[in-house]
């Protein structure tokens, strides 16, 4: 904190970031009678203002001018494939699209709302039990989360009820109840809402997957299939499959967002204050560095402020949380040469490829119809649902048709079948044919953590506040490429069961480095992971810093390795899990929750 920072009145809890994690934590802390200030560096946002129909139904502004996303001109990351390279700035949005503003990426996400596969929570233990320690490839930092599915189940259930999630259960309280995912663990209750209808492409995929011998189910979607009132008393409207989820605020109030599902209640709570356009620079620590005293931030006028607080909760996007820990000196930075230190360790991504199937020209696939979380998946090759022994790789991948609504600029970029030129008359013909008659199938795979894949501070480039950018060192590894290629072959099996005119299977290629120019997914994870060993995790199993006990760090940064599922459901459950332990234990007895 510099000398001219304005010192503000102390509060009980300061929260960095106004997305899902921050909103959940703020709700829980105000319920516990604590005063909360939430600092969001982006602008204030609401569905009424940012999702108003029809102005919001604008693909150029939503998906190509990134109206609701992070302003990279102020703050970005640098990226390299290995530690011998010079990392270079991520100057334009492409491979991943972090959000910014009140609601965070939760305002403009798609809505796929998963729990987690129980085996993924203890993947290291499970792999060793099933295949032996030698099965783990050299250099892979495979770890357990330090929490079990049974412990998290009540919080998954709570999050689904807050989000108004649509889906079909397979097993509730040990009893088979429906046609849901046969690989999913037992639930304490049904989904709050029935599954969304299958769009046509999902319907085709469901039939073909069954014919291929797999076990399709409806994707769990935080897009309300019916009118719904959540436990906080806020109302959602039924999804009308408009096709504008990812990149947009939902004008129907059907896609769950912090802005619709939590903030309307929080905003009128007397113990809650939201400060937008407030950019946090640093968590302040006391003299011995064992306790946080608050945070320093730049307010909307550019004035530096110190907000004192008893508890600091970092709830920004995954890599911003890691960067704030590094900038604040919370936890030991990771050293890849020695595989020691924890902040920056186990940075992971998600391993996604998309294949395309063309149907008969008389069949219209109507790809403009869609719901962000809707679709049909099968989990036969996800997590430990299949025998990896003879295959020789760790990790897996759900496979799905998740038609979120393909819009025309996006379709123009996709273009035609392989070999079609990217412009001219042949491009036109190929694009029209593909848009009208094709469907897309994703292998949405896990990405394992590796010793030489990590986050640290860049030595060269800075943000507009003069602080170093975060540096990503990331590349695809053979284990993950082999996994992808195996699963994409199974997509080939499904495509054979369709009445396909043409099939284009897309596999990850060996030796082809991570390409920052192509959109892949915004599901980044790790870097400040949870666990039971302070030598390999920055956070204990309650997402509390091992080193500074009044700092909690909530987000996908806590994942020790990637999973095949979208992260938001897990992040929400972890937020409720951490909040529960803060409420029942920490508030009365501040100190380390695990020892």
């Amino acid at each position: 904190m510099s000398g001219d920072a304005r010192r503000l009145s102390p509060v009980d809890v300061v929260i960095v970031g106004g997305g899902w994690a921050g909103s959940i934590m703020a709700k829980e802390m105000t319920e516990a009678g604590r005063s909360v200030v939430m600092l969001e560096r982006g602008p204030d946002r609401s569905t009424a203002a940012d999702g108003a129909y029809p102005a919001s139904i604008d693909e150029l502004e939503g998906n190509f001018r990134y109206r609701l996303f992070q302003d990279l001109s102020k703050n970005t990351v640098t990226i390299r494939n290995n530690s011998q390279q010079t990392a270079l700035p991520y100057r334009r949005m492409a491979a991943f699209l972090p959000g910014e503003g009140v609601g965070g990426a939760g305002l403009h996400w798609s809505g796929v709302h998963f729990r987690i596969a129980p085996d993924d929570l203890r993947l290291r233990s499970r792999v060793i039990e099933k295949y032996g320690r030698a099965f783990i490839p050299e250099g892979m930092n495979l770890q357990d989360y330090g929490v079990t599915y049974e412990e998290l189940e009540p919080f998954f259930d709570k999050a689904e009820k807050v989000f108004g999630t649509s889906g079909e259960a397979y097993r509730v309280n040990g009893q088979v109840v429906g046609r849901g995912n046969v690989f999913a663990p037992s639930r304490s209750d049904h989904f709050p809402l029935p599954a969304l209808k299958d769009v046509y492409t999902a319907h085709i995929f469901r039939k073909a997957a069954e014919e291929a011998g797999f076990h399709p189910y409806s994707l769990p979607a935080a897009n309300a299939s019916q009118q719904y009132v959540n436990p906080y008393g806020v109302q959602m409207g039924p999804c009308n499959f408009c096709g504008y989820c990812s990149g947009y605020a939902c004008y129907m109030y059907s896609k769950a967002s912090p802005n619709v599902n939590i903030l309307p209640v929080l905003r009128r709570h007397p113990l809650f204050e939201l400060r937008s356009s407030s950019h946090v620079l640093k968590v302040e620590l006391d003299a011995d560095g064992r306790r946080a005293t608050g945070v320093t931030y730049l307010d909307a006028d550019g004035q530096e402020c110190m907000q004192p607080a008893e508890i600091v909760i970092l709830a920004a996007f995954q890599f911003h949380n890691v960067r704030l820990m590094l900038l604040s000196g919370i936890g030991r930075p990771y050293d890849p040469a020695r595989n020691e230190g924890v902040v920056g360790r186990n940075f992971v991504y998600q391993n996604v490829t998309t294949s395309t199937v063309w149907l008969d020209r008389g069949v219209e696939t109507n790809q403009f119809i869609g719901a962000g979380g809707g679709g049909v998946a099968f989990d036969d090759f996800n997590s430990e649902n299949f025998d990896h022994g003879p295959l020789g790789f760790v990790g897996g991948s759900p496979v799905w048709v998740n038609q979120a609504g393909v819009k025309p600029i996006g379709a123009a970029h996709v273009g035609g079948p392989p070999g079609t030129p990217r412009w001219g008359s042949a491009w036109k013909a190929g694009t029209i044919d593909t848009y009208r008659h094709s469907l897309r199938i994703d292998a949405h795979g896990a990405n394992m953590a590796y010793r030489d894949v990590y986050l640290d501070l860049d030595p060269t480039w800075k943000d507009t506040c003069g602080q170093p950018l975060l540096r990503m060192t990331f590349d695809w590894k053979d284990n993950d490429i082999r996994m992808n290629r195996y699963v994409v072959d199974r997509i080939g099996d499904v495509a054979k069961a369709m009445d396909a005119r043409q099939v284009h299977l897309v596999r990850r290629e060996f030796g082809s480095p991570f390409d920052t120019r192509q959109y892949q997914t915004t599901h980044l994870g790790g870097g400040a992971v949870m666990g039971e060993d302070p030598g390999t995790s920055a956070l204990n199993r309650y997402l509390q810093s091992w080193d500074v006990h009044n700092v909690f760090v909530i987000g996908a940064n806590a994942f020790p390795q990637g999973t095949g599922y979208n992260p938001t459901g897990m992040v929400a459950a972890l937020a409720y899990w951490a909040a529960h332990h803060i409420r029942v234990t920490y508030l009365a007895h501040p100190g380390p929750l695990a020892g």
Partner: protein
Amino acid sequence: MGIGSLRLMPSRRRFMQGLAGVAACGTVPAFGASAATRPPYAPRFFNAPQWDFLIAACARLIPADIHGPGALALDVPRFIDMQMQTPYGHGAGWYLAGPFMQGADNLGYQLPYTPRDLYQRGITGMNAHATTRHGRPFAALAPAVQDDLLRAAEQGSLVFDEVPSAVFFEQLLANVMEGAFSDPIHGGNTGLGGWTMLGFPGARADFMDWVDRYGAHYPLGSVSISGERA
């Protein structure tokens, strides 16, 4: 609109589409003619030789043909000129802090230039190349020669002073696609011609009653944000 009223429409829609299809085959030049009847657009960013280049390049990237209107009938050059007036044209949202150094292609864009800079430098480079090689600026060359030059730029085999030709080409192609298929509120996609060609209903954004009409052609035409109908 409810399902009841929709029932009457598919056959009428197909009839109209049939007519449009027949007309399109015989009257490709008409797309250009209708563009000519509109008052000419006076570009604010591009100067006259740059504007000539942009019009010629757009006409090659999305030509008018049997599949539907080309980039000129869709007013794509106007869209691009209008985009240059927006924060995007000035590089808003791009991290343009130095130092600048080039790395492997897969690490992405590493130039200090905004979209406006890329057009200025890229068009200068294309025209200089055309003049050196063929004695005339790009716009004055035969379409086949223009196509060859665009392909060479796409493959990065032209050498410009400050901007790799592939970087310029990608900027141009991306903006051409945007101009053909974005809402007309941004100046392109005139008459919703881009959307009609693809079969995209535009800002209707409500498919509650068509989500389980499996495989069936969606019967309603495109609508724009401002309420214009195709």
